């Protein structure tokens, strides 16, 4: 199946000379939830802004449903709804008024029924006639989501939707996102929080310094996450591991003092007990041992830090 959004060789250099994106390649599939993770200034907003038409790319192309975002901007933008990172709304407009405006702006005929549904889904119906400046921050963010959904987009971009949002509302939001996905909407969201990406996404991409460091199915990442490592420090160094340890797939360090055993915590038998007793039988004496878990957090941290520990 061809991708719904295809980003190829995309680069962005701002007028200040700052290079915010370096040769980014990315395919987004129809109907998936993609989470983009990355530290402050990684280029997440820049990437989204280019796809939505707010920032001009310096190099490279983006197609949405086969249409070029610059040449065929009418086709591509009609399909997209954007909830930007910053809360920017017309303070004096009502919630209802601003949704109606958004729908019109995206070229759709007025449809009060749809707007009512959107506002109800966002628990904003009782606030529909309130001026936006009279709403709380969390409500404003929901109004922004409502604006993005007003024209029934097939693709929804959420740029840090949970910044400044309480736990309760966050749950509601994820519920809504899942419902939208079930109705066929493709969702791309950015976040700083790994748990969020884990909870909601089908696929996770990590951006750092304007480059996509990794992009993978979440289940694949979870499999890595499910791995644990047991590191054994030996009293005497070994030149080579005895043959009977081959089934354990052990790794011996260069100096022959450390053995690393990678195992699956979800497995019924991890093999730790048998490994230890076998080592004992062979007469290999241990000095110390430790276990480490490579969490998504670790993967993330090692990926985004310039010098891994």
């Amino acid at each position, binding site marked *: 199946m061809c991708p719904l959004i295809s980003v190829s060789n995309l680069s962005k250099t701002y007028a200040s000379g700052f290079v915010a994106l370096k040769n980014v390649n990315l395919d987004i599939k129809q109907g998936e939830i993609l989470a983009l993770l990355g530290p402050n200034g990684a280029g997440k907003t820049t990437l989204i802004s280019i796809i939505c038409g707010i920032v*001009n790319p310096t190099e490279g192309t983006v197609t949405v449903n086969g249409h070029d975002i610059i040449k065929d901007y*009418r086709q591509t*933008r*009609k399909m997209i709804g*954007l909830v930007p990172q910053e809360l*920017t709304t017309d303070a*004096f407009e009502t919630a209802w008024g601003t949704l109606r*405006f958004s729908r019109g*702006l995206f*070229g759709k005929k007025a449809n009060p029924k749809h707007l009512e549904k959107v506002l109800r889904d966002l628990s904003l119906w009782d606030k529909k006639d309130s001026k936006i400046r009279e709403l709380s921050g969390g409500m404003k963010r929901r109004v922004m989501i409502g604006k993005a959904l007003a024209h029934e987009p097939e693709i929804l971009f959420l740029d840090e939707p949970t910044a400044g949002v309480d736990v309760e509302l966050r749950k509601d939001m994820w519920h809504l996102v899942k419902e939208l996905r079930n109705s066929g909407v493709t969702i791309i969201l950015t976040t700083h929080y790994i748990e969020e990406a884990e909870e909601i996404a089908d696929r996770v991409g990590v951006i750092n310094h304007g480059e996509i460091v990794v992009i993978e199915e979440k289940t694949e990442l979870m499999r890595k996450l499910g791995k644990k490592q047991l590191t054994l420090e030996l009293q005497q160094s070994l030149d080579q591991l005895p043959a009977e340890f081959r089934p354990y797939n052990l790794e011996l360090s260069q100096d022959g003092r450390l053995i690393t055993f990678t195992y699956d915590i979800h497995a019924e038998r991890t093999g730790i007990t048998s490994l230890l007793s076998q080592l004992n039988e062979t007469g290999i004496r241990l000095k110390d041992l430790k276990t480490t878990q490579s969490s998504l957090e670790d993967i993330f941290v090692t990926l985004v830090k310039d010098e891994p520990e």
Partner: protein
Amino acid sequence: MNYYAVMAIYRFEIARTLRTIFQSVVSPVISTSLYFVVFGAAIGSRISDIDGIVYGAFIVPGLIMLSLLTQSISNASFSIFFPKFMGTIYELLSAPVSFYEIALGYVGAAATKSIVLGLIILATARLFVPFEIAHPYWMALFLVLTGVTFSLFGFVIGIWADNFEKLQLIPLLVVMPLTFLGGSFYSVDMLPPFWQKVTLFNPVLYLVSGFRWSFYEVADVSVGLSLAMISLFLCICLTLVWWIFKTGYQIKN
């Protein structure tokens, strides 16, 4: 053409005017009325007629033009500057609309506002000074052309300005002096010959002269020339908008 988008912008802007009706309608009407009171009733009776017209009536077309010009510019420039300033411009940029549709929505709304305002001032003036309009259709034509042209001009200023000072700069330093020296309060042949020549370089003169002719059939320059000049300004403003669009306007990174 994204008709719904143009209408959405237009409606949004009209709604904004109605929300701020005091500032956008009542206050210019009151301030213009003060001119009618001061120059029409109070001082006007001591000033002799110009071209056979009572001074109070003579200044009516010029004052309407003055309001029309300044209101068109300030309405249109503010309407596009404000979304840039607040950040709500993101939605316009991400919407399936062309720059022309955006311009049409904002300029259309600004022109509507200032033309309606011009008509209100006209009606108000009638309360203070008696006058007749000789050529109502010509009057309407000048009103519409001027409203549209200077709303376009204001839109260009609003796109260009990236801070409040720049937004005020041209209206204050260029437009204000030109409107005051454009023959709103006097007839050009009351000036010394040298200044008469200089005044011919003032574009506002042609607007005021044409507009006044539609009232009283007296003019500083011929009505055809007035019409030609305003059409020329309209073309210049359209070209400016086109040029801004071509060269990448100042709202995108």
